[in-house]
């Protein structure tokens, strides 16, 4: 039975029903209107300033790379995330807006001014929480000497970003799984047909060639880590989403690399450990040199996984932020210089964003491929 939206070949009639010329004309008009409004609004966005009011590019870049207790969207608009701390007096949960609406300044013994936030018993200095006690104590280098809180489990920007990634993954994969349950072995439709090539790619091009016979045991983990890293990288590139930097944080990638290390070590069979601790087919004095290197290699390989992912993503963000900072640096000299450099800088920034999209997928693929290779080495049979 053919419905009204299908033509006589059974294909969708959308190409005949929609007037694409009109739609594109309207989209172009809307886009130009959006650009005009955006240019007007962005003139009121404040840039980062150091204590003496000058624009400090390094500080702005570091502020956008680092974690924060709020998701700063635009201008004064921010989503204030909960602060969850445990001190000697027990657990404390409050919104970070109490902290951010209470800025203070203090002077170090050497005369530099620093700014911090205070609320109740807590001081927040550069996004770290300390006990207030009698007030902030600074040493000569401008570091806070107050006692830090015992446990800080706050939902920070990175944690909120990870929750968003998890939510996206759950939504995508439950819908795909439901689709497979409903359709069985029939041809996939909708989101299934988009995800199936990716999932098969990870299984057939990454897992099976690297691991061999026992590949299917590791495929769920490889799929999870591939999509988690890819989606987290993409979220970090979306502008105005608060500048999430999930996989650019050493803590996140350290956990991913630690899981790979644990899985490799647990699944290592006799041949794997034998090859590391007593390599066969090698003269004795070469063994003495090789064994420490191989033993260090057990730890260095996940460490390198961690640093590679963090460095690539953070470097990409820094490049994009540096192009933006360039506009403000020139704008401080003269407004027209700022506008002039703005055109070139924005074009370069858009170009770098496209490169970073490629890097997002590539780093997820490289992490998954190397994890698969380590798993393959762990379960390899003698040959």
């Amino acid at each position, binding site marked *: 039975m053919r419905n009204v939206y299908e033509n006589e070949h059974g294909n969708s009639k959308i190409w005949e029903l929609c007037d694409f010329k009109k739609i594109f004309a309207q989209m172009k008009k809307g886009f130009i209107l959006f650009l005009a409004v955006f240019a007007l609004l962005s003139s009121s966005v404040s840039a980062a300033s150091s204590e003496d009011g000058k624009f400090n590019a390094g500080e702005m870049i570091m502020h956008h790379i680092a974690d924060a207790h709020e998701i700063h969207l635009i201008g004064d608009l921010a989503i204030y995330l909960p602060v969850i701390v445990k001190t000697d007096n027990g657990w404390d949960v409050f919104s970070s807006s109490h902290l951010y609406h209470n800025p203070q300044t203090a002077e170090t013994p050497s005369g530099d001014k620093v700014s911090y936030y205070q609320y109740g018993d807590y001081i927040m200095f550069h996004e770290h929480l300390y006990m207030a006690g009698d007030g902030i104590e600074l040493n000569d280098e401008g570091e806070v000497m107050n006692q830090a809180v015992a446990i800080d489990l706050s939902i920070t920007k990175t944690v909120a970003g990870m929750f968003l990634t998890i939510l996206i993954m759950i939504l995508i994969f439950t819908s795909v799984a439901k689709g497979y349950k409903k359709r069985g072995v029939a041809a996939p439709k909708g989101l299934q047909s988009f995800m199936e090539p990716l999932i098969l790619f990870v299984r057939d091009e990454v897992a099976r060639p690297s691991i061999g016979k026992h590949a299917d045991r590791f495929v769920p983990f490889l799929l999870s880590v591939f999509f988690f890293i890819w989606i987290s990288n993409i979220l970090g590139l979306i502008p105005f989403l608060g500048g999430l930097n999930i996989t650019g944080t050493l803590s996140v990638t350290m956990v991913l690399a630690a899981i790979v290390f644990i899985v490799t070590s647990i699944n290592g069979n006799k041949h794997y450990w034998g090859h590391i601790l007593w390599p066969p087919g090698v003269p004795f004095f070469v063994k003495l040199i090789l064994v420490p290197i191989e033993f260090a290699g057990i730890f260095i390989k996940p460490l*390198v996984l961690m640093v*590679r992912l963090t460095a*690539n993503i*953070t*470097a990409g963000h820094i490049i994009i932020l540096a192009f933006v900072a360039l506009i403000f640096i020139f704008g401080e000299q003269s407004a027209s210089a700022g506008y002039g450099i703005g055109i070139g800088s924005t074009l370069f920034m858009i170009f770098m964003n496209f490169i970073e999209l490629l890097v997002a997928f590539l780093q997820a693929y*490289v992490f998954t491929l190397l994890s698969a290779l380590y798993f393959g080495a762990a379960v390899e049979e003698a040959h």
Partner: protein
Amino acid sequence: MDLLTVLLEVSLSVGLAGLGAGVAAIAAGLGIGKIGAAALESIARQPEATGDIRASMIVAAALVEGVALFAVIVCLLVVLG
């Protein structure tokens, strides 16, 4: 005289870290350039293997770039603390 005072304002460690980042960029350029050159020559020899060669080139470039970015991270750490 002004140039000299400007040069002396930046501490030695930060200046050398900047130099290190530059060397890392040279190294990345050299490494990925060699990979690209080898890939182009192989594609010229056997155009029907273009897909496989392109995939291998991109993977190798990502690994080499990772090493260059280790150096960048180390230089950044020197500058920051």
